[in-house]
């Protein structure tokens, strides 16, 4: 069969969803309009902190205004946080109330202070200008170290501290012992820069209350509509699930920012009942900058103790993490269970301790952005390892190889809770070294030098925990939800299949990869399979898409549902073919009697299940639908290596990435084309963090980088062609296929490789460190400061 006609597992099948996206027929939330729809404009605070007074009397009578809502009007529950993290002394995290609309005071620039609903968006905006806003500004809490004390007071008046929790993981005593025995301790301070996710589709929410049936529908740009239904329905608006449908149609990218339940969703849903009209809100880009949850924003002190040969003895990490003004949905888990647990990385460090104090500040809430905690952990590790090698005069490749967990050590229990099931880290590293032509780097460096340029190479060898998550483990660690996934497969009478998945695709290509699974398993044409997602009224339940979990958890649920279909089909076939069930085998889409040429096709069995004239009614019910809730037994641990080579013009600080190589061990790969696309996108996002992107606040708490003119989004000409290799080295045994996940690898592995390359290049002129983003200006300044010293 020609390659382009292959559609099974492992084939680079062209995407089924592309036709509608290529022809402008995608259906995104803002493309949906309802009869009699009105528009909401969110009036937001332009002050970071202060007491709030509003006079809406003039605005109420403005043209087209239907309703104006202020904080105290909306008597609903607090927007909840989905993960309880306890401090090391056992006390639960401080969890202040989070009203959808600010009530007495404002806590960040961008917080909603009033909602104007009018017949047109223009009228709503015009009316909002008639609202008399009186905010008495107070100096905001912005600096993370200041937030630890009462220096500038507390972000929440209801709390006696800005510290949400003071958490630890690992054995502090063992680490102190390890450090005391070390021949060398490398200590560095790191800032992980604050990012703004910037999916190109901004958020949008359309609430539609149907009075005839007392039923609410919320159309929203979400990565997990069932989670929104649960959080908003049960905790904020007290709407029971059977009275609330949440639909997330085509979603234009998420990157984490569309996981969370946002105030605007609750507001439009609630107001649609109050005024009995559909209410739509669409974020503009500036609003997105000041209302979508931000990411990263850590300051960290790290100490790595090594023996004289470079073997790691102990790692001590002390981090302050910014949560912003309120606890967003998964905010508490990102700098703890998605961060501290990754501090072993691919290394056999025997003792590790990680302490994290997460603090409230007068900034936009901070939560997961692509990678979520794991990029921050990888950055800490790969920067300190690189620095240690430099200090000890070791090669950057040798120090890593010397400390990798050897293949013989699996399953490997890390000192920070996780147990890795498999891994061959040296193998991916060696492939990457070869692909990147590392052996001839010296020649290229020499050539650059002749041209007056500085050339550097940087490595990052990393590991990710994917496939959130075993529910029992997550629950024991404070998660307030299960993290399984669901699938329902409806086999239709003619043998075609509709797959209803709790995963959500917002670019990942599930309609293709999930169809590949079913087509491959049931032996039917890929075009006889359709995938349905993003609608709580159609899909049994779902935890959605994040944490590189869709294939591993959602795909496995689909795979197991097909097993159930085959099992039932065998019973029907045995009845029709008048043999024992044990004599039936299923292959190539046929139920065959072993050792004979008798068989029934999958379509014939489907028809028999729905037209059950000749059917084992004494043993089975008619029909051929099956469902599966799959709860994974462990995380999966894909791992890999990024090698980055840069050339810097010392006169201008201008930097060019000349080569970027990424090699990942992903276990079984369902669609290599899609997987490579995911890795490439992640790499670009990672380079964005390393070289370009930075959310910057001024001393008054104004976000200075609140547009695409001020926040440097990566463009096509920022990058070279990426050399990516997705490998199938070790399969995991936590799912049938052995797949490990790929969505976040680039953002996790890439930033330290880039910065290590920059530092390598600049070390020739005496620069020892540079912070992200390493802009040309920053590089130029570092070179000149080093010269002057």
């Amino acid at each position, binding site marked *: 069969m020609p390659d382009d006609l292959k559609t099974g597992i492992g084939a680079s099948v062209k995407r089924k969803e592309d036709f509608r996206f290529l022809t*402008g027929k995608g259906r995104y939330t803002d493309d949906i309009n309802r009869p009699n729809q009105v528009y909401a404009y969110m009036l937001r605070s332009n002050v970071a902190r202060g007491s709030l007074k509003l006079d809406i009397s003039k605005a109420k009578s403005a043209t087209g205004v239907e309703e104006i809502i202020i904080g105290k009007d909306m008597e609903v529950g607090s927007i909840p946080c989905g993960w309880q993290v306890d401090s090391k002394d056992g006390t639960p995290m401080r969890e202040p109330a989070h009203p959808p609309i600010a009530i007495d005071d404002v806590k960040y620039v961008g917080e909603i202070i009033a909602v104007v609903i009018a017949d047109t968006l223009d009228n709503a905006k015009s009316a909002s200008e008639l609202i008399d806003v009186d905010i008495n500004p107070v100096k905001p809490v912005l600096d993370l170290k200041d937030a630890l004390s009462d220096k500038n007071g507390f972000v929440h008046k209801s709390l006696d501290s800005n510290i949400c929790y003071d958490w630890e993981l690992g054995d502090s005593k063992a680490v102190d012992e390890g450090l005391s025995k070390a021949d060398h301790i490398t200590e560095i301070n790191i800032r992980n820069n604050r990012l703004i996710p910037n999916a190109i589709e901004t958020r949008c929410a359309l609430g539609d209350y149907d009075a005839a049936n007392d039923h609410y529908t919320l159309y929203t740009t979400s990565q997990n509509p069932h989670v929104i239904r649960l959080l908003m329905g049960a905790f904020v608006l007290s709407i029971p699930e059977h009275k609330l449908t949440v639909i997330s149609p085509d979603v234009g990218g998420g990157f984490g920012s569309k996981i969370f339940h946002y105030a605007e969703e609750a507001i439009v849903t609630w107001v649609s009942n109050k005024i009995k009209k559909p209410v739509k809100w669409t974020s503009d*880009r500036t609003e997105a900058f000041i209302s979508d949850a931000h990411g990263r924003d850590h300051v960290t002190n790290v100490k790595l103790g090594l023996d004289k040969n470079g073997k790691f003895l102990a790692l001590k990490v002390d981090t302050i993490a910014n949560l912003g003004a309120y606890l967003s949905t998964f905010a508490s888990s990102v700098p703890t269970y998605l961060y501290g647990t990754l501090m072993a990385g691919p290394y056999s460090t025997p003792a590790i301790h990680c302490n994290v104090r997460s603090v409230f500040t007068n900034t936009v809430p901070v939560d997961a952005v692509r990678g979520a905690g794991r990029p921050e952990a990888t950055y800490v590790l790969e920067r300190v390892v690189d620095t240690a090698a430099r200090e000890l005069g070791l090669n950057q490749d040798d120090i890593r190889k010397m400390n990798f967990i050897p293949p013989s050590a699996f399953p490997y229990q890390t000192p920070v809770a996780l147990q890795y099931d498999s891994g061959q880290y040296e193998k991916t590293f060696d492939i990457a070294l070869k692909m990147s032509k590392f052996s001839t780097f010296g020649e290229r460096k020499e050539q650059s030098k002749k041209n007056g340029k500085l050339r550097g190479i940087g490595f990052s060898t990393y590991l990710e925990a994917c496939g959130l998550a075993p529910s029992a483990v997550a629950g024991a660690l404070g998660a307030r939800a299960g993290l399984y996934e669901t699938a329902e497969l409806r086999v239709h009478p003619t043998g075609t299949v509709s797959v209803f998945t709790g995963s959500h695709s917002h670019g990942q290509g599930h309609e293709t990869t999930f169809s590949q699974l079913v087509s491959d398993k049931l032996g039917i044409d890929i075009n006889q399979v359709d995938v349905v997602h993003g609608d709580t009224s159609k899909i049994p339940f779902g935890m959605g898409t994040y944490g590189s979990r869709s294939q591993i958890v959602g795909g496995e649920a689909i795979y197991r549902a097909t097993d159930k279909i085959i099992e039932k089909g065998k019973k029907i076939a045995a009845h029709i073919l008048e043999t024992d069930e044990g004599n039936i085998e299923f292959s190539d889409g046929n139920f065959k009697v072993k050792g004979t040429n008798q068989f029934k096709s999958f379509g014939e069995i489907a028809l028999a299940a729905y037209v059950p004239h000749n059917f084992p009614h004494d043993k089975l019910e008619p029909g051929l639908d099956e469902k599966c809730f799959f709860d994974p037994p462990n995380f999966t641990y894909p791992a890999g290596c990024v090698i980055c080579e840069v050339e810097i013009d010392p006169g201008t600080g201008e930097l060019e990435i000349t080569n970027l190589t990424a090699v990942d061990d992903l276990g079984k790969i369902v669609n290599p084309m899609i997987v490579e696309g995911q890795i*490439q996108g992640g790499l670009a996002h990672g380079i964005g963090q390393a070289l370009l992107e930075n959310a910057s606040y001024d001393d008054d708490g104004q976000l200075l980088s609140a547009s695409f003119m001020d926040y440097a989004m990566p463009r096509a000409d920022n990058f070279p062609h990426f050399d990516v290799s997705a490998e199938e080295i070790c399969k995991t045994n936590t799912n049938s296929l052995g797949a490990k996940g790929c969505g976040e690898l680039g953002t996790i592995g890439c930033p330290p490789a880039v910065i290590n390359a920059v530092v390598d290049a600049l070390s020739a002129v005496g620069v020892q460190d540079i912070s992200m983003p390493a802009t040309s200006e920053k590089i130029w300044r570092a070179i000149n400061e080093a010269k002057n010293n």
Partner: protein
Amino acid sequence: MPDITLKVNGKSISQNISSNTLLSSFLRDTLNLTGTHVGCDTSQCGACSVHLDGKAVKSCSILAIQADGCEVTTIEGISDGDKLHPMQEAFRNNHGLQCGYCTPGMIMSGIKLVEENPNISESEIRKGLEGNICRCTGYNNIVKSIAEASVVMGGK
């Protein structure tokens, strides 16, 4: 409120509009051509790119009234029924899209890049896409797609 008359995807349209209507809103809200997307408010992202009298323009940055008497082509107007334009086909072949949101703008810009420079190089494609932002793909496959389309469309 003024009347405007223009051709959109080959069809003549006369419409009474308010004078502050952006071309992007006119296409999306009045004509229901929702393939043109709006991803920013500073004309940086390029998701709203359309062709206006043969040039790629950002429809969020001009008023509908400025298109009076013009010919506008949107993403909905470039394929021949079910037969995709070579640029659309190349994006499909090379996995040049993920979430699909920036895609209409990328394709409309890509077509004009190739029409204006049939033998376009990789670095010219990368520079030419300066006004179009994609968060999903890392641009690798977008660049490949446009390069492949340039061959099919008659260059090289």
